[in-house]
Each structure stands twice: as structure tokens, then as C-alpha cells.
């Protein structure tokens, strides 16, 4: 399976093979079970994912026959999509010249003061609502003090005591390809959601023993989501991140481009024996992709277990994930505990939001942020879409998940179903998931670059649904179009005479011909080698140039052979 898509979609590529297998075993076509089982003209390679080199089991035995349990808690920083920064009105675009998007306040020039950006508060509230958090009607800002070259003021403005929102929950599905686990549902509780400033960037120049500081990123708005340590392993964490990204992208509050640093995931990892208290945790940073979330955490769990089993101890430290060597390495020395000396930010009075549709507080002259108003503006969330797909259209949860994961696919699906309500949703889904993606994969094209508009795909669905063509033909049509043929599917079928042969008498003829032309195979079959049936079927397909309705062929051929066996 060629990995086509950018990192953010990698979970999908793991899921695909598993789903392919499942798809074939589920009754997606209007054929009977027997036929589907026998008809496997495409071989699916069993895919070994890199994660399977690490254990995907959360429990495993050590020599002393006791179980290790691992505990993972995530801290995610998401850059809010806004035009200007959190406390200053400098711009936020990525990739501008060094120190171009820096205002006096961002550089901590003396005498400058913070000014809060309304959009950032709205984004925070929207996200909090989507994650079922309790929004605090009054929240405060605090200063978190530490020295670093990318922090000009010597402190970061964050929300420590009373953040914007607290106590939410994120529900997501965990797929583990290559493992025996069935996909399952998992929840992670959100302790708090807070608004805070991002720091600048230091480029380390090892040779000259110095750091070059770029403050473009200083002051960019972040939402920090602090999750409870209620995950068990890397896969759960990766799945959580994937779901979160879907939600944030739907809301438009974060671009989630991990490669640009718009979404940063830190993981707190610890292990302990079952029944014993939690172990010392380490913090893993520098995770650059969803895939790396899984890898890094799994590695760290493994490392901690190895250390403990060898009699060592785990130090409470920060470790960085090194994607090249695929291991975590110690980062900042945290031997001496940092005391951040949190202090309320005196330059920012309390932040008030209106919870209900109540009138504004007196002494204020600007529109308040109205939470109810924002709640009404919430778009449909991924979980709601998945539920709608399964409930309304009857497609499987796994297929629904794949569609929701890929917005382009989802849009195709909606277009196809909207165009003609009578179309079979399951069939449509399969065309999208299996046929479309496969051919794009082969041609190394992304979904965005796909040459198939929705109505073309819809036409193919119609042709299949009406049994005018079979699946092999459908693939041939796709191949035609992608090679540059600008005709519509129906036109292609017309031109090449690819209509499916469904006429029973015709098929009779074909089957008879097959039996007559392959006496040896027939003999083998009658003597008990049932496997050669497939070859006979294959011959029939060949004769008809793959145009025969294979289900019918199988039916007829089986009957004929039975007659021969039992005259």
C-alpha cells in the first residue's frame, strides 16, 4: 500500500487494509454470501504496520508474571486561526520574513500593554462547546515566569487559576490495524481549556554557540487542552489526536497542520504494576505528526518498562522524540523543579462571557461574547456526521469513519446521494472507499487532484446498481477516465460495449462452453478438487471479457457441475 497522503491522514492508510478485508466479508454488494466469498479476484496483501514492531498490547507479562499498565495523558497546544495575535495586533501568517510580524508588545518593549483579541475568545469558546466543556462566565489571566531567549518578557501570559473552560470530554474511536483488537470507542476527559501566548522561536547555532531569535511566533494565540491521564497507549493517543483535528478543522478554530507547528502534542507517560499506585511520569515533546504520537508513546512505554525491569528508576524529566532514530532522548534538564511563580496578570481585567441570553453587565459598552449565540453557530461535529451516516444511510460505522476522516470523500458521498436519492448508499460508499482511492493510490494522486467529479462517480454507481455493468467494468471505466478519456461512464460503456451480460441463456451458453473446453478441470472438480472451481469461473470471465455477471455465472456453473457429478 503506497502511502500517498500527508502525515495527518496516515491513520487512515492503516485503517484501509483492515477495512478492505472487512468490506469483503460484509455483504456490501447485493450478492449472496457464498458468491462473495468465492469471488476474490483481487488479492489483498496483509499489511504489517511499523507499530506492530512495538507491542500493541497494553498489558504484557514480565518474568514475575505481573502485569504492567501504562498511563498516558495528553497536553495539546492548538494555534488559533486568527488574523492577529492574542494580545497584539500584529499578523499571524506562516512563512513571513524573520521578525516581520512583531509588534512592540511582542518584543516586550517597556511600557507596552496587552489587548485581548475577541476572535481568540470566540474560538476558545467554540472549541470548549464542541468538547462539552463547562465555560466559565469569568476567567482570569496569569503570568507564568521563566527565562528563555524566545520569551522576551520573561513570562508567558496564560490562564492558570481560572481558565476559559473546564471539565469536558472527547469521545473517539480507536482503530488498531494489525492487532486483534476490534475498533472500540474511548473517552478522554478534558481537565481544562485555556488561552495563552505562544513563544518565539530560537534557532540554535551550535558552531557559534548562540541562538538566533525570531519573534514572529511570539504572542500567537494558543488553546491549551489539558487531558486527564486516562489513555492507555499510543494508539489511543493517536486516535484522540485524529478526532480532535477533525473537530478543530470543522470548527475552523485551528488549521491542525502539525508540520507548521499549528498543533503540538505533548504526552505524559508512566507505567506501573497493576494494583499499585501510578509511576513517575515523563513528558514527551517534539512530536511532529499523528503517526509519531503513536510511535513516541509506545517507545516511551517500552523504554520505561525496560528500565524498571532492569532495576532502574524513572526520573521525572522532559524527553524529546527523535523521529530519525525513533527514540526519546532527554531534553531540558528538569532536575531542579521549576517554580513558575504564577501571578495574576494585572494589565488584564477579568474576562467575562455571557452564558445565557442575559442582558449585558452594566459598565460595559462592547458586545459581550455570548456563549449561547456561539452554541447555535456550532457546525455539525464529526461524531454527529458519523451517526447520521450510519442512522440515515445505513452504512457501517467503519465506513462512516473513513468518510468523515476525508472531507473530500464525504462531499462526494453527499453529492452522489443528493443527486439521486435512490442510489444505494452502501454501494456508493464502496465505490468511494475502495475503487476511487485505490485507483488514485495507483496513480499517485491525492484526493484533491482526483479527476472524477461527483456526478461521474454517481453515474458509475447507477450503472452498477442497475446491473448494467459489473465491478470489473467499473474499474475499467475509472481507468479510462483517468487516462484522459473525457467521455461519461455511460458513453464509455456504449462505445466499448462493456454492458454486463445478464441474460441467463447467454450465460448458459458461456458456461456450457467453459465445461466443454476444459474437460480436465471438470474432471478434477468432480474428483473432489473443489478449488479448481475458481479457475473455471475465471475461464468464464475470460470468455466474456469480464462482462458477465459473475454471480450468475457462479450459480449456473455450479448447477451444471452438480448435474455432471450427479447425473
Amino acid at each position, binding site marked *: 500500500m503506497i502511502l500517498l497522503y500527508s502525515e495527518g491522514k496516515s491513520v487512515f492508510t492503516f485503517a484501509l487494509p483492515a477495512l478492505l478485508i472487512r468490506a469483503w466479508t460484509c455483504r456490501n454488494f447485493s450478492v449472496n454470501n457464498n458468491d462473495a466469498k468465492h469471488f476474490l479476484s483481487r488479492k489483498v496483501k496483509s499489511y504489517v504496520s511499523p507499530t506492530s514492531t512495538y507491542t500493541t498490547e497494553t498489558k504484557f507479562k514480565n518474568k514475575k508474571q505481573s502485569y504492567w499498565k501504562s498511563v498516558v495523558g495528553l497536553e495539546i497546544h492548538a494555534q488559533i486561526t486568527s488574523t492577529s495575535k492574542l494580545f497584539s495586533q500584529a499578523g499571524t501568517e506562516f512563512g513571513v520574513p524573520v521578525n516581520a510580524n512583531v509588534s512592540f508588545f511582542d518584543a516586550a*518593549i517597556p*511600557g507596552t*500593554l496587552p489587548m*485581548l483579541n475577541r476572535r481568540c475568545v470566540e474560538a476558545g469558546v467554540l472549541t470548549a462547546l464542541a468538547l462539552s466543556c463547562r465555560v466559565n462566565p469569568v476567567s482570569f489571566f496569569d503570568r507564568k515566569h521563566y*527565562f528563555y*531567549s524566545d520569551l522576551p518578557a520573561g513570562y508567558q501570559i496564560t490562564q492558570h487559576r481560572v481558565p476559559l473552560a473546564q471539565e469536558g470530554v472527547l469521545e473517539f474511536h480507536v482503530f488498531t490495524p494489525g492487532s486483534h483488537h476490534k475498533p472500540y470507542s474511548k473517552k478522554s476527559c478534558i481537565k481544562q481549556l485555556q488561552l495563552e501566548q505562544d513563544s518565539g522561536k530560537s534557532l540554535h547555532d551550535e558552531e557559534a554557540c*548562540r541562538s538566533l531569535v525570531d519573534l514572529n511566533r511570539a504572542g500567537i494565540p494558543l488553546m491549551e487542552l489539558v487531558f486527564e491521564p486516562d489513555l492507555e497507549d499510543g494508539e489511543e493517543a493517536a486516535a484522540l489526536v485524529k478526532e480532535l483535528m477533525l473537530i478543530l478543522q470543522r470548527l475552523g478554530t485551528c488549521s491542525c497542520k502539525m508540520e507548521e507547528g499549528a498543533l503540538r502534542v505533548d504526552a505524559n507517560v508512566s507505567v506501573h504494576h497493576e494494583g499499585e499506585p501510578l509511576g513517575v511520569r515523563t513528558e514527551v515533546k517534539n512530536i511532529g505528526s499523528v503517526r509519531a504520537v503513536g510511535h513516541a508513546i509506545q517507545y516511551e512505554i517500552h523504554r520505561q518498562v525496560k528500565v524498571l525491569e532492569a532495576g532502574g528508576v524513572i526520573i521525572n524529566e522532559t524527553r524529546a522524540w527523535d523521529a530519525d532514530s525513533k527514540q526519546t532522548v532527554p531534553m531540558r534538564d528538569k532536575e531542579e523543579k521549576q517554580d513558575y511563580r504564577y501571578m495574576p496578570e494585572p494589565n488584564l481585567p477579568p474576562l467575562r462571557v455571557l452564558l445565557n441570553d442575559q442582558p449585558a453587565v452594566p459598565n*460595559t459598552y462592547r458586545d459581550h461574547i455570548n456563549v449561547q449565540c456561539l452554541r447555535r453557530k456550532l457546525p455539525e461535529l464529526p461524531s454527529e456526521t458519523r451517526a447520521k451516516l450510519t442512522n440515515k444511510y445505513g452504512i457501517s460505522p467503519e465506513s462512516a469513519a473513513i468518510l468523515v476522516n476525508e472531507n473530500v470523500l464525504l462531499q462526494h458521498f453527499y453529492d452522489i446521494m443528493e443527486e439521486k436519492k435512490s442510489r444505494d448508499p452502501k454501494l456508493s460508499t464502496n465505490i468511494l472507499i475502495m475503487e476511487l482511492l485505490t485507483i488514485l493510490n495507483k496513480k499517485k494522486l491525492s484526493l484533491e487532484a482526483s479527476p472524477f467529479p461527483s456526478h461521474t462517480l454517481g453515474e458509475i454507481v447507477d450503472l452498477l446498481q442497475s446491473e448494467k455493468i459489473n465491478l470489473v467494468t467499473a474499474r475499467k471505466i475509472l481507468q479510462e477516465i483517468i487516462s484522459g478519456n473525457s467521455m461519461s461512464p455511460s458513453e464509455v460503456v456504449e462505445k466499448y460495449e462493456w454492458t454486463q451480460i445478464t441474460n441467463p441463456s447467454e450465460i448458459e451458453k458461456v458456461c456450457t462452453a467453459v465445461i466443454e473446453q476444459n474437460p480436465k478441470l471438470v474432471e478434477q472438480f468432480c474428483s473432489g478438487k473443489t478449488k479448481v472451481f475458481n479457475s473455471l469461473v475465471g475461464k468464464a470471465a475470460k470468455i466474456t471479457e469480464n462482462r458477465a455477471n459473475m454471480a450468475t455465472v457462479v450459480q449456473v456453473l455450479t448447477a451444471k457441475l452438480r448435474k455432471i457429478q450427479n447425473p
Partner: protein
Amino acid sequence: MLSLSVRQISRKLQDGVIVPSDVCTACLYQAEKLKKLNIFVRLTKEVAEHQAKESDVRYTNGNVRSLLDGIPVAVKDNYCTRNIETTCSSRMLESFKPPYNATVVQKLQDAGAVLLGKCNMDEFAMGSGTVDSIHGPTKNIWQSGEKYTLLRNVGERATSVEQVQGCNSTHGSKMVYQELHHLSSHSNKEGSSSPSEEGDWFIAGGSSGGSAVAVASGAVFAALGSDTGGSTRNPAAYCGVVGLKPSYGLLSRHGLIPLVNSMDVPGILTRTVDDAATLLNILAGHDLLDSTTVQDSFIPLDLSQDIDISRIRIGIPKEYNCPGMSDEVMETWSGVADILERAGAEVVQVSMPHTPSSIACYSVLNQCEVASNMARYDGIEFGLRTAENRSTEELYASTRSQGFNETVRGRILAGNYFLLQRNYPHYFLQALKVRRLIAQDFTHAWSSGIDVLLTPTTLTDAPRYSQFISRDNREQCASQDYCTQPANMAGCPAVTLPIKLSKQGLPLSLQLMGQSYREDVLLAVAKWIETAVDFPRLQLET
């Protein structure tokens, strides 16, 4: 001319009797003449002359911007002035040229005022004497050796003139300046740049000492100071000028390099209460760039109507008599209370029981905010930078040790101590609670019908330099700020006005405090008292 009020000089300009350039020249000359008082860190001669010329044109064309147009003013050296060094009297910012103007500075400029110079102050506004400055201490004009006359008014015109020779008092032994200096908290390893003058002069008060002397001496007609614990009122009291601390949130702090963000206010120093109102009207108002300014629209003050003093209720908080208060100050306090009573005002004693804790509470909040606000001084983006390049920690430590004086360093260390997780609830959080108690003292007074509170501003008249530096900065502030500090805790407006002269010939002043955003009542009462006591104007001999 230079002893006139803003109102008076403004009228002369309007009438065409004089032109701004002439006023500017006279002020610059005065400033130069008084160089040994060390009022200014920097005289902005070119800027002033340029602004004055532009004002000339405006007066000729008749499009005068405000009452302040063409009038020389000065600002304390912690206000950011574009491309003009703003040092905060510290090595750390010795060469710092801000790329922008503070909002209040911009407002003065927009009103047509002429910026004469940046005034000396205590380093980073930490101090109550204007002695801890890399530029050297500022001397009080009163009893400084400069010759001046005192003019009194009855009504509007000066009718009686007392010739007073201001001269050094021979009281006390002479102490050599160099010997004295090592007792001060300024520990500059290279040695101080002290003037080699002998004689023991009187301090100007602090931390806005330069601004106060600038106004008192006639070098400017008005000045900006800053007030966190009394830094505008204290020097105003010692220098015999009007010092107004407006309500917190009324004036923008954008561009005012902060000491304690939750208490700092720009302070106004003028010779008359009317002038203070004029300045306030120009400077007050919501500023988008400062989130701690109130959004209510500001109604300009109008003090033209005389107040009916018999309808005013004056509160005398008994806790303001604190140990160390001189008899003279007590008499002054009592005297004004008498005048008010006789004029029909209701004078009552009130209790503000948490006043004695205010100074200790302030010390905690001040030091904690200082520790936080000073964290940005690392030499990377601006300010002093030493040659240390082994690591960021070494660079920061070395820069900060060299850039800050002992007082500043001490406050940073103490502040960080109080902010440590283990200490936070006992000191910082406790201080915030005590702050509420202090603020509640004020609200109780207002709700019992008090319009203004009358208290002393300082404990004595201006101390001598030798006496002042015999105690360290922290101890000095603790006693000096006693009466002025609570108003900052509560955010209330307060004004100090000179009442009379002490036996030493130094000004004695009293303080009025009012309800938040009720500067109208506060200044009206202040104006009444000002008229009643007729404090002599100081006019330097040319």
C-alpha cells in the same frame, strides 16, 4: 513670568502679549541656570524649539489647539518618548530610545504643549527621594541657595510681597557629600558621579522629584510624574506644588514604564488646582492600547463655579496620625480642618482601621510586581547587554546585576521569594486580601456620607539629604509613603496642595482623597482650600 500658572500664561499667549518661542527660550534659560539642582536628565532643546515655533504659527493663524498650546512642560523619565532616551534613571535603560510615544505624552503633544525635557527620578520609580538615580540626586529648590522671592495673592492680583532670602540653613553639621554617598543604596562599582559640592541640601522627594522641582522652579509650567505609592504627591508636597493622582484607570498607562501595574497612575504636577484640572481634561479618557482604562466617557471638569463648602462633608481619618509626624504637620492639618469648619463644612473624624497595614501590604504587592515586571530586562531585545556569552543565564545574570541598583535587585529577590509556590498564599494572596480590607475602609467612608478625606501628605517637611540617606531605601519608603500609599491601594484619586511654610522655610502640604472618578468634587474642595490658604508663589530672581 515663569511663576505664572498655565491659565495665566495661556491668556497672555492668547492675547498676543508673548509668543510661545519666547516662553520656551525663557524656560530653557531657567532650566540651564538651575543645572546644579539636577532636575533634568535631558533637556530636549531642539524638540522644544521646534514645537514652540509650530505653536507660534498656530497662534498667529488663530487655530490654537488647547489651553496648553505653546506651553513648556516636562515629563518624568519613565515615559516613553519617541527617539528620545528614556532611562528610568537606570543603567539598564541608559541608552534606550523608545520607538513610540506614551499615550499621555502624545496627548500633550497633540494639545500643542512644548516638551522641554525628561525629568530625573529614582531608579525605576523605586524610592521616595529622587536620590537613587544614575544621574545623581535632585535637589529641592526650596532653601537651595538660589535666590527667590515669595509672592502672595489676595484674590487675583499680588498685593503683598515678602522678601525672603532662601539660603542654606546652618543647622546641623556639614557632611561631605562623598562620605555620605556610600550610605545610599546606589552601589555603582565604578564610583558615583556625584557633584563635588559641599553643603547639605533638602531632598525633592520622590520618585518624581525632578518633575516637582521643574514645576516649582518655573522651568516648566506643568509636568508629568507617576504615582504608585505617592511618587507624585510626595515630591509635590516637599516642593510646594499641586500634585494630583487621578483615579486608577482614568489616564492611560500605555508607554509609562511600569512599577506596579495594578496601582500605577500618571501623576500631574502644576502650580494651581485649576491647572491640574486643565491637564486632567486633556489627558483623561479610554485608551484602546491600555486595557486597564475605564470605558466610560470622560466628562471634562469645570471648576469655574465656586463650590458651596457648607455642603461638603470632610473626613479626618484618625489612623493617619502616625509616629514620626512633626508638630508642624499636625498644626497644618488642624488649621485647615478649622478653616473648613468655620466656613460651614462638616468635619468629622472617621476610622480607617486598616491604614497601618497598608504599607506592609504594599511592600509585598510592590516587590512581587517588580520581580515580574523586571523579568524582561535581559539585554536581548533592548537595554544594557554585557559581553557575557557563555549561556543565556550568565548573560541575563550579568546584565541584570550591572544594570540594576541594589534597591531594584533587592525588590526582585524579595518579590520572587513571596511568589514562590510555598509562600504565595501567606504573602501575596494575603496581601491581596488585606488590599480589599483597605479598599473597604474607603468605601465605608464614602457610604457614610463623606465627600473627601483630609490627611497630611508626608510626615514632615523636606528632610535633609544626609538625614534621608541614613536609612535605607526600604525603610525610608515605609515611613514616607504612609499617608499616600492607601489611595493607590484603593485606586482613589488624591491631590496634595501646599498650605504654608515651615519654620525652616520649606513647604508644608496636605492631602485630599476622593471617591473614584469624582475628581470634580475632589478638585473643587482643593481649589477652595487653595484660595483660603494662599500659599506663596516662588519666583526666582533673574
